[in-house]
């Protein structure tokens, strides 16, 4: 530490001298930045840290517990900060969070108790307030919907707070308790084998605990100050994971433990919070509405029912075993007031709803109006795994590959626990960051193009390595950036120049080859079919926009122990507008593309290159996970797509949202701010008092949303809250005419919540880039106020966001607009666009429903003889083969009848593009 300080001082003096001598020269030769990365900041120093010299952190689980009995009344109060610039008293926080929930959650927001920090707040803001303990807006508007029926069974408490050292508070609450599988000191059944993930921080850290883990990007880099980085779980690393089970309604009590003074933030971040469970089928009051934020000292109860979409209309007697939740033998859970016991044979309890809607990989993050980018960048991000009968996180247990009557897909996970094993199921939160010369996280809020960092982090660490067993792994990859998209190549390294397809740098004696892997889930939703990469449409993982998730399976057993593999980002940016180009993998690996610091700027985008290293370790266990190749197109199905009948699509309500620039009364082409034009109407900036669309929870249900990019070289990853959609087409507007085509394989069979609109693909022929996307969406079960926005969060924060309300049929009163303050939330009236009920009539009139082809078994957009030969090959087989069109027990003549009906038909779209890249 001392040496660091000395050398820093020396460097300063040294540099000052140079500055004095050459300062003028420096100023006059300051060239136009080649690349504005990091955005409006100088390059981030590394403090001598080398790439791949620290172990990647695994996510730490939140402590989830059953709700305390109603007679438990141990009062507790969020520890009051020492001063106006301090967050919650962190030494008292562990004690506070260790006590059971109090007060009990209530249907209406709890406004009977004061803000526990009221005295301190009054002193700090020079106004006497009493406040209220819960920040959820009061009254019926934001009351928990269907509370009696879907009230919480379990809860977790978390406080957003400033960075601090982990004390190991949650060690015992980890499902593995650092005792079993790869998390244990030894692996049960292989007592001579050390658990690979027992030591959280690295091989030299103490075993089986997060105690002592500091908040920093690398051990050589400075520890983050408490106001530089704010995280869920009271400011601690590792990043946090919430494991949940379908049907088990979960309460998130979220405390705001941030400083009362908004300026105590090291330059960015706003201390009011609202948490969005990304893509959750959650009621509006628990969706993290951008305008329903809460204040330091308060809590906000999000209640997530975790029910399958279709709960009210499909499988309502819970008879379909594929709609189920995992459990332990003897366990009982409450469903609609009825106690159900875990089936001792299947290890599941059936639940209501449509099993085609099962979701898997989610995340939650702050959604503060105008400040989402800064707050998420600053640490308000956690991931969330949904476990179901199909995706239960236990391999080798009643696997579908053994018997098609079994529902468990047996994705790579582990075997020690009844559900939720994470031995071989890994979260990868990828994000670009920047820090100042002191090593503290840095950001410039005053930009609208978008913000780019110059350093890649995985699970918050700079360029880490990760030990893997020589077996199959599932990776749940999330793009957690503000504005950056990724296109990730996965390569193995050879220790010679001839074995690999791509030579390493001259003299390195290395070469590299792409490895095969399977994509199994898109945006956290398990797809109908796995997609093998490389393939004819893409060599590498598809582009990931901000907030997109890709779950992949890599089989490390194909490599010798000791092999190193890398994830390599190939997508380059100059500024936050959108991706600029794909750098050929060969140029990156050979060193021909090498970002250098050129004066105050990077010569090239330094986020391009290797950012994660895998090191293959010996595996002596038995890999019981499924073979993803069995589920490729033309073979078995994992989760077939949700069905939209032709009649539903023909009767659907249409809405058009055009994401562009220019606003108010401005003529087209007028710049900034970001705007959205709804249903052909005027371009509007975000205005939370205005409802732009109002679908209804029942009745019509299906809507077709046309998402369009207004152009100008900008990329917009559009996110619609509450319901995921299925692509009808991708397309571009050419001379005013929409030309639609078949999306690529990984989008045809997917359910999405991020719709990436970008024209990067025009020149490159990238099949999943286009300016228009048509999606079909269904709105069910819950009402409330939601938003739709660009997930380039700097675009979102500068007005590319609109409010839409899901309304009950016949609802006459618009939801009021909350206006939060220290003393609680008041309401404004709400206004609306004229088209919120009609939708876009012109789009409806001109829309041609693409033919839906359930018999297009090879996904080429036509039902022809090649589909027939696939069909014939699976005829008579039991289980969900793609030829099992009616999804009954076996591929039979009934399916053939359905097949024959579509024979010869096309979907009416242009074929998908093939990627001509090397």
């Amino acid at each position, binding site marked *: 530490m001392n040496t660091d300080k000395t050398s820093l001082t020396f460097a300063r003096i040294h540099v000052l001298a140079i500055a004095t001598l050459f300062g003028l020269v420096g100023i006059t030769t300051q060239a136009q930045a080649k690349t504005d990365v990091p955005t409006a900041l100088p390059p981030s120093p590394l403090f*001598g840290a080398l790439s791949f010299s620290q172990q990647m952190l695994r996510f730490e689980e939140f402590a989830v517990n059953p709700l305390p009995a109603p007679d438990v009344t141990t009062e507790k109060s969020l520890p009051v900060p020492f001063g106006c610039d301090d967050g919650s008293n962190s030494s008292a926080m562990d004690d506070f969070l260790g006590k059971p929930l109090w007060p009990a959650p209530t249907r209406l927001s709890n406004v009977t108790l004061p803000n526990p920090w009221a005295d301190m707040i009054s002193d700090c803001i020079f106004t006497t307030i009493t406040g209220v303990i819960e920040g959820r807006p009061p009254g019926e508007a934001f009351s928990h919907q269907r509370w009696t029926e879907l009230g919480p069974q379990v809860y977790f408490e978390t406080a957003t707070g400033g960075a601090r050292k982990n004390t190991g508070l949650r060690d015992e609450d980890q499902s593995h308790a650092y005792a079993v599988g790869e998390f244990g000191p030894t692996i049960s059944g292989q007592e001579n084998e050390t658990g690979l993930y027992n030591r959280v921080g690295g091989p030299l850290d103490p075993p089986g605990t997060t105690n002592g883990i500091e908040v920093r990007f690398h051990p050589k880099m400075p520890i983050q100050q408490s106001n530089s980085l704010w995280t869920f779980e009271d400011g601690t690393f590792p990043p946090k994971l919430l494991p949940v089970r379908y049907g088990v309604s979960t309460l998130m009590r979220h405390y705001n433990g941030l400083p009362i003074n908004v300026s105590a933030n*090291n330059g960015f971040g706003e201390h009011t919070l609202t948490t969005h469970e990304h893509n959750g089928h959650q009621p509006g009051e628990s969706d993290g509405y951008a305008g329903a934020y809460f204040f330091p000292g308060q809590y906000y109860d999000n209640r997530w029912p975790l029910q399958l979409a279709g709960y009210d209309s499909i499988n309502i007697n819970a008879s379909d075993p594929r709609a189920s939740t995992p459990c332990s033998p003897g366990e009982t859970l409450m469903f609609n007031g009825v106690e159900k016991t875990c089936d001792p044979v299947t290890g599941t309890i059936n639940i209501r709803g449509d099993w085609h809607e099962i979701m898997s990989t989610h995340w939650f993050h702050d959604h503060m109006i105008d400040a989402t980018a800064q707050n998420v960048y600053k640490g308000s991000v956690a991931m969330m795994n949904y476990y179901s009968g199909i995706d239960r996180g236990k391999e080798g247990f009643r696997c579908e590959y053994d018997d098609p009557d079994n529902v468990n897909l047996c994705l790579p996970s582990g075997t020690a626990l009844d559900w939720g094993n994470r031995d071989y199921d890994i979260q990868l939160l990828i994000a670009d960051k920047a820090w100042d010369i002191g090593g503290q996280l840095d950001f410039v809020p005053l930009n609208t193009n978008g913000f780019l960092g110059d350093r890649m982090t995985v699970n918050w660490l700079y360029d880490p390595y990760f030990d893997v067993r020589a077996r199959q792994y599932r990776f749940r990859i999330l793009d957690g950036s503000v504005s950056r998209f990724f296109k990730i190549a996965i390569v193995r390294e050879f220790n010679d120049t001839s074995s690999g397809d791509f030579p390493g740098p001259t003299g390195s004696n290395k070469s590299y080859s792409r490895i095969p892997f399977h994509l199994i889930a898109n945006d956290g939703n398990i797809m109908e079919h796995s997609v093998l990469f490389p393939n004819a449409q893409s060599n590498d993982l598809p582009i990931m926009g901000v907030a997109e998730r890709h779950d992949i399976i890599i089989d490390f057993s194909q490599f010798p122990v000791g092999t190193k593999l890398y994830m390599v980002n190939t997508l380059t940016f100059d500024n936050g507008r959108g991706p600029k180009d794909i750098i050929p993998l060969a140029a990156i690996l050979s060193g021909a593309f090498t970002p250098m610091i050129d004066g105050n700027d990077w010569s090239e985008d330094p986020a391009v290159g290797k950012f994660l290293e895998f090191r293959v370790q010996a595996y002596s266990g038995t890999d019981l996970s499924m073979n993803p190749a069995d589920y490729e197109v033309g073979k078995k199905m994992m989760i077939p797509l949700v069905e939209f009948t032709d009649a539903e699509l023909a009767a659907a309500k249409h809405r058009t949202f055009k994401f562009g620039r220019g606003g108010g009364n401005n003529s087209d082409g007028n710049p*900034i701010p970001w705007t959205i034009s709804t249903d052909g109407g005027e371009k509007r900036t975000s205005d939370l008092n205005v409802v732009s669309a109002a679908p209804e929870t029942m009745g019509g249900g299906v809507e077709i949303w046309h998402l369009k990019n207004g152009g100008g070289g900008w990329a917009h990853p559009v996110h619609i809250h509450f319901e995921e959609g299925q692509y009808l087409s991708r397309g571009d507007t050419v001379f005013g005419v929409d030309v639609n085509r078949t999306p690529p394989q990984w989008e045809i069979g997917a359910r999405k919540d991020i719709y990436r609109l970008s024209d990067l693909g025009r020149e490159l022929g990238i099949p999943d880039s286009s300016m228009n996307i048509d999606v079909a969406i269904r709105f069910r079960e819950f009402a409330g106020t939601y938003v739709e926005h660009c997930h380039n969060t700097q675009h979102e924060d500068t007005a590319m966001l609109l409010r839409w309300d899901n309304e009950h049929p016949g609802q006459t009163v618009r939801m009021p607009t909350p206006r939060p303050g220290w003393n609680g939330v008041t309401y404004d009236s709400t206004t609306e666009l004229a088209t919120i009920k009609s939708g876009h009539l012109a789009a409806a009139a001109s829309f041609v429903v693409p033919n839906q082809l359930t018999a297009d078994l090879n996904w080429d957009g036509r039902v022809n003889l090649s589909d027939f030969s696939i069909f014939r090959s699976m005829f008579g087989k039991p289980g969900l083969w793609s030829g099992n069109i009616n999804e009954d027990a076996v591929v039979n003549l009934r399916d053939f009848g359905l097949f024959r009906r579509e024979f010869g038909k096309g979907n009416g779209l242009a074929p998908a593009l093939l990627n001509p890249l090397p």
Partner: protein
Amino acid sequence: MNRTDRYTAPWVAITAVLLWGMHSAIAAPAGADYFPNVPLVNQDGETLHFYDDVIKGKVVAINFMFTSCGDICPLETAKLRDIQTMLGDHVGKNVFMYSITVDPDRDTPAVLKAYREKFKVGPGWQFLTGKIEDIDRIRKKLAMYNEDGDELSDHSINFVLGNEKTGQWLKRTPFDVPEAIVSVLLERLQTHSLMASNSRQSYTEVRALPSVGNGKNLFLSRCTTCHTMGQGDKLGPDLLGVVSRRDRQWLTRWLKEPEVMLKEKDPLAIALLDQYNNIPMPNLKLKSTDISDLIEYMQEEERRVNATPKSLLPQPYKLQSIIKNTAETTASSE
């Protein structure tokens, strides 16, 4: 080869920062080292330095405009005037409003002063001019500079709401529901302390707004800044009865291309310009269907008002936004 090797030692970055100081070396709210302290001149000829005098320690609302701007600026200025009215005494005390010209050659202090008087702008809202390169620097630092075009009319119609002390910087357009902007300026940017003692209002006390059609929607969002329906003149004439008063063809064209009619010296257009303080009717870029919806709404409203006993009609305009009026009317109709 390790990726880090070919990068840099920390001191390179330090050099960079010290030499060019793009941004504060240590993360902190954007302050003196971020914003240029360039001199600007207000409508009274007084010199104000951008950092020290205009924004330092203040909650500010800043927009960029130019007085010869034909279409968008007058409406923008009029909208801001509404907001200023709603802010009341807070302007010049808790909130500082600035309009900075992007056409300083033409917009001298005297021109700005006349413009300010024309729009009956109250005290506490200053109009600023200066050197174009200084103004461009300010725009760039506020991320209000459009690198894609340098036409004057391309200037950003956003305005910046900020608190220099806390480092909060938000963007809005003047066309948002004015209450939302006022709440940002008087609550969020004041650490929510100015209005903290406000009492809570429950959902049941909130009334739904009547469902509005396209015509009324357009009238509320585009016209009410300068006009009323039956509550007297504002910046422009009271529009009650305008549909019967004017030839339909003339009115349609006036809504479609007022600037052309003014250029052609249409006698009625010129008369209106003279009558209303030389504030031209702006081109609202309305589609023909919007114009017919708007005319239909104004006609219906005329019928409705004529059929309503005088005592039941709202009081004359009281410097409040129509939207607020509507809300209050709805609430009090209980």
